[in-house]
């Protein structure tokens, strides 16, 4: 019954397979598929649909990389990981990249030896309460019971926030996402805390009555979510970085999955370079000439990806709009 020996075996065993003789990029090309670590189930970011196909923003990030490398967005093996497994899976070489609503932080970057790609979603930790509680600001939450998912940085952020204000709270910490949701909606906690995108997703899909719950306006932490690769594998980090960046660039340039062929053949030389009318950008990365073209055609630009996955949750673009529209998304020029 006890899971411990298996956990240790997995933790040790994970390091036993030194599949890292060459670079990750070589390994991926040789295997013919990208192994991408994703979340087990967060609707909007990563969850299997009723047919078992993975859907979500994080999932589409994996697909874009596969499309750039292989010209086929379908060549991804998704590896669902829980919060505790994710870094070990990446460090051990079990996956090639991690695209699992993971916050980019200094310790993860430096101490866990990861390299993060572009931020694909600017998130922040927030609070959700039942409207019946009559609370409108987080400052009124002194003494509340708070539901927190374990294995995330949210546990520490919420402690810090209450501590800094001399307020107290009782955490209810579970690692099972569904059980935690059930406990909150059964009234076990006054407050649910996680990233605000997650709150919106939970409110929309799990509560049954989205209108009875309120996401408070306070944002108690910054959570820039980004894909990650192992440190010290720079060629591969470049491939991931630019495969994602090009989706944002495409939105800036007005290139969509529908008009990408037309744009490639247009007179604009910058568009031609980006979309592979000339081979230089792909060559620089060691990718096929049509890498960006395939990523955009098969996955869509960032705006399309966002609308497809997060639109149904009722999350507006907010910080995740382009810089030209008051958001923070700014593509580093692909030239």
């Amino acid at each position, binding site marked *: *019954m*006890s899971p411990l020996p298996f956990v240790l075996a997995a933790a*040790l065993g994970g*390091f036993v397979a030194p599949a890292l003789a060459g670079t990750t990029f070589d390994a991926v090309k040789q295997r013919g598929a990208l192994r991408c670590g994703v979340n087990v189930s967060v609707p909007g970011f990563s969850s299997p649909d009723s047919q078992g196909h993975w859907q979500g923003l994080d999932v589409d990030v994996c697909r874009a990389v596969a499309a750039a490398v292989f010209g086929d967005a379908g060549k991804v093996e998704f590896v669902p990981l829980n919060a505790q497994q994710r*870094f070990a899976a990446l460090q051990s070489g079990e996956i090639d990249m991690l695209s699992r609503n993971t916050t980019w932080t200094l310790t993860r970057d430096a101490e866990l030896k990861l390299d993060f790609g572009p931020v694909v979603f600017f998130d922040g930790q927030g609070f959700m309460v039942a409207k019946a509680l009559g609370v409108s600001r987080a400052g009124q939450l002194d003494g509340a019971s708070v539901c927190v998912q374990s294995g*995330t940085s949210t546990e520490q952020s919420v*402690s810090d926030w209450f501590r800094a204000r001399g307020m107290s709270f009782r955490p209810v910490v579970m690692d099972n996402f569904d059980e*935690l949701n*059930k406990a909150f909606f059964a009234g076990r906690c006054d407050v649910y805390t996680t990233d605000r995108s997650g709150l919106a997703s939970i409110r929309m899909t799990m509560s049954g009555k989205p209108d009875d719950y309120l996401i408070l306006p306070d944002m108690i932490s910054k959570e820039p979510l980004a894909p990650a690769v192992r440190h010290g594998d720079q060629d591969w980090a470049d491939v991931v970085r630019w495969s994602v960046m090009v989706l944002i660039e495409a939105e800036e340039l007005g290139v969509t999955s529908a008009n990408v062929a037309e744009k490639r053949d247009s007179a604009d030389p910058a568009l031609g370079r980006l979309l592979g009318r000339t081979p230089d950008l792909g060559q620089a990365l060691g990718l096929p000439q049509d890498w960006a073209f395939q990523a955009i055609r098969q996955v869509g630009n960032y705006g399309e990806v966002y609308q497809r996955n997060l639109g149904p949750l009722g999350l507006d673009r907010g910080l995740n709009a382009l810089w030209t529209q008051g958001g923070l998304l700014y593509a580093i020029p692909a030239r």
Partner: protein
Amino acid sequence: MQARSYPWRLSRGRALLLQGGVLLALLALLAWCWHNASLRLAAQGVSSGFGFLQREAGFAIAETPIAWSPADTYLRALGIGLLNTLKVSLPALLLASALGVAVGIALGAQSRLWRRLARGYVESLRNVPLLLQLFVWYGVFSALPPPRQAPQLLPGVFLSGRGLLLPAPLADLRWLWLAGAALLAVGLAWALYRRRWPLPVLLPLPPLAAVGSWWALGAPPLWSLPVLGGFNFHGGLLLSPEFAALGCGLAFYSASYIAEIVRGGIDAVPAGQREAGLALGLRRAELMRLIVLPQALRVMLPPLAGQYLSLIKNSSLAVAIGYPDLVSIANTAINQTGQAISGILLIMLAYLSVSLVVAALMAWWNRRLLQRGEA
């Protein structure tokens, strides 16, 4: 004792050789895993070791038997986790034993109804995964009314979805007076019992003495009562739904195994013993208490020890329902520091120590039993 011959046994020398070989291979495998892991970690420059234990943990814990603030170290957090594991395991162990003995006796009862009921209990609880049972218990305990609508069962006792609230005794020296008075009354009652005074008269004596002396002290407030304020109750003693669900789940589940062990133990007592007891004119309850159970205990102890150990280890399912046990807290620590291997080694070490202590206690008890009786 007479040496029996086992055809599958090897000669002593070959057996030693074989065992040594297997042990060596096992150690080599472990060493290789360890070496490989540390090599890879070093190659990636990932820091490892136990230095993180002295760092500030920075997270809150719901149930803390000893004082805790997020400014304390990871080491203290893990200590609290271990205490929480013990805090839920020990009461569950006692409850499981009591219930298991009762059900085990019922399994061999003469009444068909009792037998059927007990069999139904054992089969249904033993054959459903403990994790599912925990979810059910947790669902029951957390579906109780919210604090603001919680019913007051007795003065100072509230039952809500946030847990059972009880009055808690305050740290006050005047408790000693009450305890002293009660103790005197127990002594008196014992003396009178020897003189064949009836129990119904004697039993109320100690509580009456305690209440009387409390009255004599001027009825001081010695309890902290739970009071509803803001979101939750304050003061009093809180038994959280997580604690209650885990405790009940472990106890009722283990009781189904213990019941089978008890039944087996009772069956192992030779029928002649019962018949002799009946011939002596013992009543059924006396027969069970004086003749059968003491002998059955000897058969029961070794498997019972195993059952106790697995109860303690099963408490690690706490993380599924949010009870802050050792595994839950260690998981948080591992996640915040990334020290998976060190953290899991610490968890294993803690469970191993607890298990070895319990096993040693049970072995000691077993030895004492075996020494006492010759049969």
